[in-house]
């Protein structure tokens, strides 16, 4: 039912590779045939003419003798499409496969997908309709007879590769190109390892959905110990389970993911990823999902700890700030507005908590602190505020850049944060003025991704940062200090 989180190179894998290879080879062959008769099918295949013309074809075939018929069709085609008629079939029998294509036979799939864009930050292949890439819809028709010729030739080209595959595979292939759906024997694998992995994945999903966390944990722990399992395909489920009990384990696990799978290579368009790269890996231009999740989760944990009130509890927050600042020096993160925004949030939380402490001290016992200590503490807050503003500005810039490049981008709650910063500033001086009520958490709704295509990402982000900052704000609201004003 679920796809196997395994790396390449298993038995069943090789079987499906053979199938894929045949399919794409045929598809490329068809494309070549179209090219030969100079029809462009760059944006989708041509539509065959309606069935009544097909009947006409048959009638005319019975009426007209063969030689004449062909000339007739060639003429008609020329009239219809304004194209040169195809070269005679004799040439086709010579087998004029260019040598270059012979070399690439092993990479039929790659060749096919060369014409498709595979954005790495999205889950699926999108035919992105940016201004640059706009293409008209394929409106051309192809006569039924001509389509048959094309298919016949492509089939003839397939004879040689079909010679070497098993009989089952070749009959499956011929059924597929005739438009039948081959009923496979399910995703039933008989391979030992795959069978157990498949079962484990099924059990994992089942127990997560029924919220049986104890069993789900056990399944997950076993699954990552199975040979050949790629943990990058199941890390999200693992975090969901681990975070259920203790967020520190989840954060440790994500940190492990980040340190082990910190891929900084370039994303290569030509590679056809078996599992979608968006959630599985990072590259030089794309921050891995587990890294951002790790940062968000640790920000949440640090905020929660800082709110407890003890003076040492700012440590995890500062540690996180240091880590983020280090990350921001290297390629994928330095251009990612999300990471910049996390960095900004670190300062924001710090400024807020420090200012709150000052405020409560001021209102409770005004003369307890010497003015110089107070100045130092104020300076710290001011520093945080300026840093926050600075980083927010950078995050905005990066987000704008991403938008211009038609990538996924962040719409940042700039206005809200700025307003909040102003209030924090007021706290420093407000000794007797009543404290402004912070705006309601609903303002955070304009938070998150602007790109509607990224609904999944949105959900992901919804789950972590918003909730966590909300709780932080709500905690702010219910602080006893507001009562003291009344």
């Amino acid at each position, binding site marked *: 039912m679920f796809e196997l989180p395994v790396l390449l190179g298993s*038995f069943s894998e090789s079987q499906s590779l053979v199938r894929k290879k045949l399919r794409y080879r045929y598809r490329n062959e068809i494309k070549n045939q179209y090219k030969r008769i100079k029809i462009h099918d760059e944006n989708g295949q041509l539509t065959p003419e309606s069935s009544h013309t097909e009947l006409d074809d048959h009638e005319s075939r019975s009426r007209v003798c063969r030689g004449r018929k062909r000339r007739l069709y060639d003429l008609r085609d020329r009239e219809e499409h304004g194209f040169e008629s195809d070269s005679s079939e004799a040439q086709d029998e010579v087998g004029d496969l260019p040598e270059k294509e012979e070399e690439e036979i092993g990479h039929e799939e790659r060749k096919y997908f060369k014409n498709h864009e595979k954005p790495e930050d999205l889950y699926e292949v999108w035919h992105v309709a940016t201004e640059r890439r706009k293409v008209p819809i394929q409106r051309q028709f192809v006569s039924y007879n001509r389509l048959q010729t094309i298919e016949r030739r492509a089939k003839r080209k397939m004879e040689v590769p079909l*010679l*070497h595959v098993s009989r089952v595979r070749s009959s499956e292939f011929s059924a597929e190109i005739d438009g039948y759906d081959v009923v496979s024997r399910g995703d*039933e694998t*008989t*391979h*030992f*390892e795959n*069978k*157990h992995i498949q*079962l*484990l994945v*099924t*059990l994992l999903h*089942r*127990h997560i959905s029924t919220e*049986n*966390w*104890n*069993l789900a*944990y*056990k*399944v*997950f*722990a*076993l699954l*990552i*110990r*199975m*040979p050949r399992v790629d*943990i990058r395909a199941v890390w999200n489920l*693992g975090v969901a389970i*681990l975070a259920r*009990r*203790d967020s520190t*384990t989840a954060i*440790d*696990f994500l940190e*492990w993911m980040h340190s*082990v799978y910190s891929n*900084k*290579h*370039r994303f290569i368009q030509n590679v056809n990823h078996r599992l979608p790269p968006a959630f599985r890996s990072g590259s030089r231009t794309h921050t891995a999902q587990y890294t951002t999740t790790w940062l968000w989760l640790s920000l949440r944990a640090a905020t929660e700890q800082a709110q407890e009130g003890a003076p040492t509890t700012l440590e995890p927050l500062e540690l996180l700030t240091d880590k983020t600042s280090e990350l921001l*020096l*290297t390629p994928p993160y330095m251009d990612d507005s999300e990471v910049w925004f996390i960095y900004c949030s670190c300062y924001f939380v710090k400024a807020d908590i420090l200012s709150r402490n000052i405020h409560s001290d001021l209102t409770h016992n005004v003369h307890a602190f010497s003015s110089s200590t107070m100045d130092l503490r104020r300076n710290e807050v001011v520093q945080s505020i300026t840093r926050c503003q600075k980083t927010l500005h950078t995050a905005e810039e990066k987000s704008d850049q991403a938008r211009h490049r038609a990538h996924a981008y962040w719409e940042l709650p700039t206005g809200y944060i700025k307003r909040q910063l102003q209030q924090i500033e007021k706290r420093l001086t407000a000794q007797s003025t009543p404290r402004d009520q912070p705006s309601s958490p609903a303002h955070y709704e304009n938070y998150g991704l602007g790109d509607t295509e990224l609904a999944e990402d949105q959900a992901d982000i919804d789950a972590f940062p918003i909730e966590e900052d909300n709780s932080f704000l709500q905690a702010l609201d219910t602080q006893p200090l507001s009562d003291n004003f009344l």
Partner: protein
Amino acid sequence: MSTFIRGPVCGTDNCPSRLWRVIAGRRTCQYGHVMEGDIEFNNDEDDVPQLGSMTRRLNLTTTALGTFQSSFNASQLVDPSSTKEQHKKIFGYDARILFLKAFQFILRKQSSYLLHHKNFPQEFPIVVKLVWSHYLKYVNDNDPLANATFSEDEDDDDEIPNSRARIRQRGRANKLGLNINTSVTILYLAAVHLRLPVYTEDFIQWICSSSFPYYKANDQLPKIWQKRLPNYYLGLLNGGRALTGTQFCKKIASTVYRTNFNQHFQDTINLPSLIFRLVGNTTLLPEFYFYTMAMIKRVEKSTDFPVIPSDKPSFNAYHQTPEMKVIAYFILSFRWVLLSDSSRKHKKQTFSSNWLRALKAFQTGWQDSESVTDDNYSNDTLSKQITELFSASDKTDPIDWSERKTLRYLNWLQTTVVEKQSSLRTNSLTIDQNIAQRKLHKLIPLKTDQFPLPTTTPGNITYVEDLQEKYLKVRASLDDDTLHVDAFDTKSNEREDLIARLEYQFLCIISAQFFVPMDILEDCVRRTEEHCLKQIES
């Protein structure tokens, strides 16, 4: 004025830069990569303020050994020694000899497993050796490399018009026909010779529950052999997927043919215990044992069912293999005895419909009742549960597994697959990967207090106790009043219907046990029925 100096290509992370300059005494490329091992102390004080404004940080990681490296390169992670060992592979005649040796090694492991874990008799390994020596004789007589019959082969090729067939034939000529399944058949045949009460079913069950050295058997070979054997041969010795009943029958037939088993050995299977087992598994009354025996004696004139020889790749005479034959006779005797029983209307029926109904109710409620039973499950039920996973007629979806059943499976997986594999796997990883792996396993241990789970231990219910319980359950459901319907005797259709349904259920059970698809099983029964009718007529 540019301060860059043209030099070699930087190459770090595919950096294309050829331009270098000196920053703080280190040679740095246009994009900020520092040249390794090149430190230059700049004595010119003039340049310092000019260059001091440029700062770049280099992403340094440490390798496992504590030294710095600028970034992970795929080429760096590959152990250089592994590439050298590629050349150690041997080919041709030497490889064949080594392969035979390896095969023998696995055969010995398997037979010693049976000896120690399944209480096989002491003589068993000797018989295995005998069968194997007969097989070796066949290999020796048909060795294409030794006989050097290539020229003849080529003559043959011209006669075969179909190129597909030519490819196939050439492939076959070079093969020894040995793989891990052959070793299982040799063990099976040795058991047949000793008339041990083990059948194809048992071997498949042992294979599926992974205790038998079959799956990844090539990992158990000595390391040097593994390195030297070509991958093709290693693949032959790696039981990747579960053996199905039909494959097993086919392989047995070919091994029988090759070892000339029928001439040299005792070739009839242990009939009584197989029938007994069938009766026990279907919880039929013990009378059916005698019915089946009588029927076999009547039709076949003897109770000797020999294993059949055939070396055809297109072997499909499954109804002639002894096990299938016995199963077919058993099903037929069940059907015919009960049907003829009902036709005698003037007498009282020997087997009441009530009993049939109770049996039916028991069989349908089988799956549920099993999950309800106590923790004290036997190892037998566990291995059955796992075998079910691989069987062709897989009816139970793991999604519907009860918590206890799931836990039972997970514990089994932990002890047999994961823990066994982990030691093998760590050898193939580099030291970095190993450390990362260990860290992960420490982070996510198999057992934590945060996610507590009840512990289950396999009980020690014997086969006899299990059987007793089953019969008691049938007996209990016979007492169930809801099953008693008055005046059922008048409706003869209902009885026939019940019999047909029960027969189908038995076929399901047997097909799952013997790993044979339902259609083949039904076909076997049909063919045997025809055979019986012919015999009776003549």
